[in-house]
């Protein structure tokens, strides 16, 4: 990492300077995932406890697998890894293509068979 014009004003001293590796570098320039759509609330879980690094699987992929030992939404993964959602979608596509994560797309209201989800949410909220 070299910084142009190494004056105090230009030195990267903390996180406010932004990531050293740009998001598009993590996805090797790709803007779209190889597979899947990944809604913000699609739920993701890792299918394995550990993944060995291989070609095409970088540190960010491994971080997602680590995070998804517990079920997480796409939005949560992006927030915890502090990466844009678009970047996370591309990385998740790589993992899904290798069956390293399992993804559940959200329910749409129109697709609900009955009122049971509404009732469950109402009861759950009241019980909070």
């Amino acid at each position, binding site marked *: 990492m070299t910084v142009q014009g190494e004056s105090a004003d230009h030195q990267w001293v903390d996180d406010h300077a932004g990531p050293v590796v740009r998001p598009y570098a993590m996805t090797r320039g790709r803007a779209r995932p190889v597979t899947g759509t990944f809604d913000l609330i699609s739920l993701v879980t890792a299918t394995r406890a550990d993944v060995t690094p291989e070609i095409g699987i970088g540190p960010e992929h491994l971080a997602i697998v680590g995070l998804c030992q517990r*079920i997480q939404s796409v939005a949560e993964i992006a927030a915890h890894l502090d990466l844009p959602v678009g970047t996370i979608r591309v990385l998740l596509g790589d993992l899904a293509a290798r069956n390293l994560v399992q993804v559940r797309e959200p329910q749409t209201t129109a697709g609900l068979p009955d009122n049971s989800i509404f009732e469950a949410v109402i009861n*759950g*909220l009241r019980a909070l």
Partner: protein
Amino acid sequence: MDYGHSDRPAGATPLPTAIKILVAGGFGVGKTTMVGAVSETRPLRTEEVLTESGVGIDDLSGVEEKTTTTVAMDFGRITISDDLVLYLFGTPGQDRFWFVWDELALGAIGAVVLADTRRLADCFPSIDYFEGRGTPFVVAVNCFEGSRQYRLDEVQTALNLDPGVPVLLCDARQRESSKEVLVTLMEHAMKTREARRRAAGSN
């Protein structure tokens, strides 16, 4: 959600259903406050980076060199049960990011429009948006200290709302009050869905 999941057989975990509710309204009306009041964790923030094609609908005059825009969304989570997780998303305050709203509103079960009676017009764009999309919504008047108290029917009239749209007072800082808003929304969304089903069935 517990550590027992880590020794599951690969690919066999039944994942819960996720649903989302949006919290909309003008800048500074208390969207993130409400999300935080009911969420089981502090509100998280996620960002969408929009490139040139995404910001094409914006008026870029004067900022022609700007090719990316970051839109931040605050959100929270309520685990209802092992099978059901509710996410609450605060919509981006800037009303011009409609394409982000479209993504957020897709599949949303309903929306809370937070209103501040001192700046009632700030919530017009949200109301127009959800009316246009047919997303069930309630209007929650966040009671700020020092703001004049209006009767709910006055707010309903001022906002020119359909009489079926629930309007209620709330304190977005209070968990109980915010819970009540969400329960009212879920009841309204359920009724709306039933009414639409009946209407579709009678045709």
